[in-house]
């Protein structure tokens, strides 16, 4: 301690003061947890090391959009290089890496250090916790898709492509994002919440999603090579990315990134698949956190 410390000690010794200010209710608390978790999904308010992966992945997803925008401007083309709504499908493996990294960062950490006990001994309920974490990761995944799309849309608006077409494409892609983000976040959190070990969580989430993506591609290729291109689109139901890709392509009559549009009434199944994945993830998370012990 320095020579000035006796004075500093006197200044500090002011006794205990009670808190008489406002105490916010449950909803603002859930919102605070949501904001903290959302910031955490980009490494904000965490260590410098945990900022690297999300920001690098975001950059990797944005650069192709930037390049596409520049190319269209330079070449003077009058059509978008691809339907905007299929952009998430092009960067899908990067999206997997993003949720794979951030879902465990959001929930495994609380389980590993048993911070959940402190949350649940506060006004916040268990379902509130699940809701905040799911909403935060969904928003984060949506932002990660939205930022490149804003760049791409901006680039196209500056080009000779009719602004109306660009804006319609942008609106279509918003729907794609709104469907894909909760699916990816839900699956990833449901898997990550099983293990308190972050590394294991990352590996499990990435493995499950990448395997789904790879198997879908393989099945589609095999079926197509058998000369049954007309059936290849059924394989879209295997992976969340292709479910949304097929559904959006069919709804707006676009060229999907994965093969062809689902035909006929079968497309209802695509809609059901989206709902089942989201509802299943919410159900699994709710059940999981009902059982998280507070001992």
């Amino acid at each position, binding site marked *: 301690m320095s020579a000035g410390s006796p004075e500093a000690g006197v200044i500090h010794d002011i006794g205990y003061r009670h808190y008489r200010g406002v105490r916010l209710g449950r909803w603002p608390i859930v919102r605070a947890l949501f904001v903290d978790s959302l910031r955490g999904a980009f490494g904000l308010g965490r*260590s410098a090391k945990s900022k690297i992966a999300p920001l690098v992945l975001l950059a990797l997803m944005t650069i192709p959009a930037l390049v596409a925008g520049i190319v269209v401007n330079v070449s003077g083309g009058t059509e978008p290089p691809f339907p905007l709504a299929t952009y998430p499908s092009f960067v899908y493996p990067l999206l997997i890496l993003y949720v794979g990294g951030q879902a465990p960062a959001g929930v495994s950490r609380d389980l590993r250090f048993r911070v959940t006990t402190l949350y649940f001994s506060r006004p916040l309920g268990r379902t509130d916790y699940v809701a905040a974490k799911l909403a935060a990761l969904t928003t984060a995944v949506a932002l990660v898709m939205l930022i490149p799309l804003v760049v791409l849309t901006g680039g196209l608006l500056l080009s000779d492509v009719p602004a109306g077409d660009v804006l319609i494409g942008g609106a279509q892609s918003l729907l794609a994002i709104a469907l894909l983000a909760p699916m990816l976040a839900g699956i990833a959190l449901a898997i990550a919440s099983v293990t308190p070990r972050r590394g294991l969580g990352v590996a499990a989430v990435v493995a499950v999603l990448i395997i789904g993506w790879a198997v879908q591609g393989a099945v589609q290729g095999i079926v197509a090579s058998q000369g049954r291109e007309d059936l290849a689109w059924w394989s879209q139901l295997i992976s969340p990315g292709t479910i949304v890709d097929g559904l959006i392509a069919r709804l707006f009559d676009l060229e999907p990134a994965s093969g062809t549009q689902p035909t006929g009434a079968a497309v209802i199944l695509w809609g059901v698949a989206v709902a089942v994945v989201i509802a299943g993830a919410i159900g699994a998370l709710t059940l999981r956190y009902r059982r998280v012990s507070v001992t």
Partner: protein
Amino acid sequence: MALISTDRLTMRFGPTTALDALTVSVEPGVIGLVGANGAGKSTLIKVLLGLLPATEGTAQVLGLDAAGDSEAIRQQVGYMPEHDCLPADTTATEFVVHMARMSGLPMTAARERTADVLRHVGLYEERYRAVGGYSTGMRQRVKLAQALVHDPDLVLLDEPTNGLDPAGRDEMLGLIRKVGTDFGISVLVTSHLLGELERICDHVVVIEGGRLLRSSSTADVTAVSGVLLVEVDDRADALASALAQVGVAARLSGRMLEVALSGEQTYDAIRDATANLGLGLVRMERRRHRMVELFEQPVTSRHAQGGRQ
């Protein structure tokens, strides 16, 4: 209003009974909850917080029903768990601010309260370092700080001295006493060591096997007893037999002599006997009860009757 009251509170986990028709009521102050490991202390705390639904019976905390108003209870109560609960990668300040927010404090208030509380628990420069590098003593202080940050009416401290060395234990106990007296926050603190709680608590509740063994105020229990403690410089055994001859019951306890006090004449008898033997009288004092003996006794007598049940 009672701080905490339970009525035939029972908690079963399958075949095991953690709390067995526990009925107890305590007034505000520093309350010690004592019992061996597995006596049901942590279970009781969790039922009081509404984290576990009681199998039977009711519990009230601050006049609120633990089953129905648990959200309101959790707003006014702070909880320090027995186990580690701090993420290694955040600083004490960041973590306690976050926990203050989770208790419903707005951001500015959360920051102010965090700075205040960390200072009160004795964390200064360290609070800007990651918790992962803290000693057990510092971690316990952070855990206490997060329980106090929202200025609760009651804090539930589960084994706060666990894993601390004797000096750390004394500091933690002093801090807990300060929370009760200087901060004016009621405290329920558990320990398996009665000796350490008797020093800081106004009231001690002893449970065993989920049942109430004893609930009494520390002042009652540690009142002066009818035993005189006599220390002589040599041959305490000779003094004991000399006293026995004049009809004063005396028992050798280590180097001291425990003499049953029956009036002024007992002092005279000791004085005379000591002088006759040519011994030096070092000390003579009324002994205070210690809690330990009071609760050791029923345990041993019960074991003599064939153990529990």
